[in-house]
């Protein structure tokens, strides 16, 4: 179906089902219980899962397939956000023009940066992209203040023209919408003490994320994708056979930049603000972490990695000492305080530490990322049933790991 074989269709359908039921899956704990802290099914975070999923999927098309490690992808995210917010300011609060412009500008931007950066490979390519991204960041941060509003970030104002929308006399800022349907409207259903929030913005992001995922699936399975893999396994040999690999890598770079722009546009559509720190090198590093954590070169891995990191950033960072005391309150006083002191460095502002440790563990023990973990568990169960799948392992050489073992 849809140009996919049976296995991929099944895979896509599973992904569709997972995305559609996210608001239910992410609310496993009843409200009012101590574990409700770990619920993640609120609109902002679900939107971030979908958006950073798109970002990581796009990054993976470049890094996972060609092996080119771009350290400046956040620049495209930022450019996308700025373009979208400008559309909201000038044209209309409808998100469609904003997102289209975001994809287009980031595509052009990626073409320029890619054209220069792709003259080198390996570490030099990474450094070049990093340099371009930092340049963009600094420009956005200070030099281009009239366009980007510097450190404060570009925001909507009451007196923006918005020529396609009607005159706004309400005295409050309009909200982003798609043909009148507000992105922040949502409906809540309570089932067995669990509150499920179905949010328009999330479903909008989710549908786009599924399309983005489908596109990346097709790219992975296409001859073009095969070319990109060839670049990764041995670009030199490819060049010796007379093939010019640069158009392929440039195409991959632009596609991946447009994915990032799409993610940036969506971020701005969900929350109409574009800040320069979206372009900072830490943001570029984050998408690299997401991809490696989840499993570079796999389809689902980057999405998992994105979800993992965003979950830590938003959920673990909010556990403070008061919450900890609440958890351990059943224990005797001395022990309670001791446990709070022991756990304290790993939660709240220490969420980076927990994430760092997990990242280290994943890289050391699961070089293929979280996906490899899943596969190993699946293999444990499979081996018991039959060994048919692996009759001739020699003819299915393993993929080289993306992180040094």
């Amino acid at each position, binding site marked *: 179906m849809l140009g996919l074989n049976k296995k991929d269709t099944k895979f896509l359908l599973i992904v569709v089902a997972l995305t559609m039921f996210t608001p239910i899956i992410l609310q496993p704990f009843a409200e009012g219980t101590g574990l409700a802290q770990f619920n993640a099914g609120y609109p902002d975070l679900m939107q971030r899962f979908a958006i950073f999923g798109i970002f990581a999927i796009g990054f993976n098309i470049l890094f996972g397939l060609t092996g080119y490690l771009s350290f400046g992808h956040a620049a495209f995210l930022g450019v996308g956000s700025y373009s979208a917010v400008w559309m909201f300011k000038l044209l209309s609060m409808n998100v469609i023009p904003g997102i289209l412009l975001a994809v287009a500008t980031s595509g052009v931007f990626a073409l320029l940066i890619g054209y220069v950066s792709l003259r080198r490979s390996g570490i030099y390519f990474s450094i070049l992209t990093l340099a371009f991204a930092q340049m963009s960041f600094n420009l956005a941060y200070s030099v281009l203040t009239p366009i980007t509003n510097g450190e404060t*970030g570009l925001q909507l104002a009451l007196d923006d023209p918005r020529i396609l929308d009607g005159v706004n006399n309400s005295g*409050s800022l309009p909200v982003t919408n798609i043909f009148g349907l507000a992105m922040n409207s949502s*409906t809540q259903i309570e089932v067995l003490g669990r509150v499920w929030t179905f949010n328009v913005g999330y479903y909008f992001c989710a*549908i786009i994320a599924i399309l983005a995922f489908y596109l990346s699936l097709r790219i992975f399975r296409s001859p073009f994708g095969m070319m990109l893999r060839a670049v990764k396994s041995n670009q030199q040999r490819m060049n010796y056979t007379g093939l010019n690999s640069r158009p392929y890598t440039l195409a991959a770079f632009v596609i991946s930049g447009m994915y990032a722009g799409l993610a940036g546009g969506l971020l701005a559509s969900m929350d109409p*603000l574009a800040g320069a720190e979206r372009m900072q090198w830490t943001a570029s590093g984050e998408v690299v972490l997401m991809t490696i954590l989840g499993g570079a070169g796999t389809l689902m891995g980057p999405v998992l990695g994105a979800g993992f990191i965003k979950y830590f950033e938003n959920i673990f960072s909010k556990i403070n000492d008061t919450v900890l005391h609440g958890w351990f309150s059943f224990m005797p006083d001395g022990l309670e305080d001791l446990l709070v002191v022991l756990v304290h460095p790993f939660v709240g*502002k220490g969420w980076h530490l927990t994430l760092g440790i997990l990242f280290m563990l994943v890289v050391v023990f699961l070089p293929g990322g979280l996906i490899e973990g899943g596969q190993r568990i699946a293999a444990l169960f499979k081996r018991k049933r039959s060994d048919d799948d692996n009759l001739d392992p020699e003819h299915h050489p393993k993929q080289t790991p993306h992180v040094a073992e």
Partner: protein
Amino acid sequence: MSTSNPTRRGLLKTGAIASAGLAVPTIFTASSAAAFTNEPTGSTVTLGFNVPQTGAYADEGADELRAYELAVEHLNGGGDGGMMSTFSSQALNGAGILGKQVQFVTGDTQTKSDAARASARSMIEKDEAVMITGGSSSGVAIAVQGLCQEAGVIFMAGLTHSNDTTGKDKKANGFRHFFNGYMSAAALAPVLADRYGTDRNAYHLTADYTWGWTQEESIAAATEALGWNTVDKVRTPLASTDFSSYIAPVLNSGADVLVLNHYGGNMVNSLTNAVQFGLRDRIVNDKQFEIVVPLYSRLMARGAGANVAGILGSTNWHWSLQDAGSQAFVRSFGTKYGFPPSQAAHTVYCQTLLYADAVQRAGSFHPCAVAEALEGFDFDGLGNGPTHYRADDHQCFKDVLVVRGKENPENEFDLLEVVEVTPRAQVEYAADHPMFAGGALGECNGG
């Protein structure tokens, strides 16, 4: 591999449209149950404390969080009640707010607008916070204030000193107790004229973001009005940690005063660099070279150590003040944490109390009712003398302290001495002053 099948594709498309169609009716049922965003219905009410726990302003954030916890304790009737007993409005009774027990959630703004907004959104959407407060950077405060306006909750700004917060970026749902760049300049200028004369050449180093710009604009305007000459204004990135390359040009610029429009870690580093370059020992134009830091805090003074001795600046509040409110606050903060509070802690404590009091007086958590109760509110007993919350721009007006780094501090908290308390009348300005023009409050949004 590519076995495209148009009829199935059509089927799937129809399915997608149909499911989207199914989702539509449920959307219109949204937000009909509650009168406003996150109306507290149970026996508790949740406030969101959104402060920087990492980044350049982490010290201030940590102190703010302590003050918030103290305020919640006092609101719920715990501790010694702090400034609740000295507050001129006695609506609060120690039984929470409107009889509801006060709970709170915390978040890390990372001193980044994006992260701050994500954190605030999660407080509003997940934890059902009815009020968001915090921020230790004007950029962040303005971003979060905009978010709260859209979401329909009240934003009580913490440590934000930019003119823009209640100037061109003011919002109907946002309120600021802290003073601003204009007030600092207005308070400092007479003292500067008095001590350093009216014939000076000033060189500005400015943190490159909204606070720095408005601070620089304000202090430059105020000193030029004295007759000072502005030699140059140089912007430095907020993330800088070494300012040597910015200090070196000052030596040959002919300037005899260096104005550091820096805050937090920035100021600690730039001041240290300036002292290392021997600026303070120089004689330029037959005058002793001087350094001015428009916005001072004790946490910064501690970071810069002996370098702050004799340097003038302004501050919102200082723990050595002797009025009953300040003393009560310092006592309860000191009892709980073992050291005196900073001005950041003071302003957020006041903001929490002011919000709770406004709710109590309005008899409702509705943001519009709360805003109405705060607008034009006159109060006293919170450490700054008689204070007025102006309705036009939601800015508090109160006395401003001009302080100086102590020459011989007795302990690590006793670093600043109050030189002068500039009366409120001297730092007031019209709501449509050019430095604050260009924005509109809009209307309060209840979600």
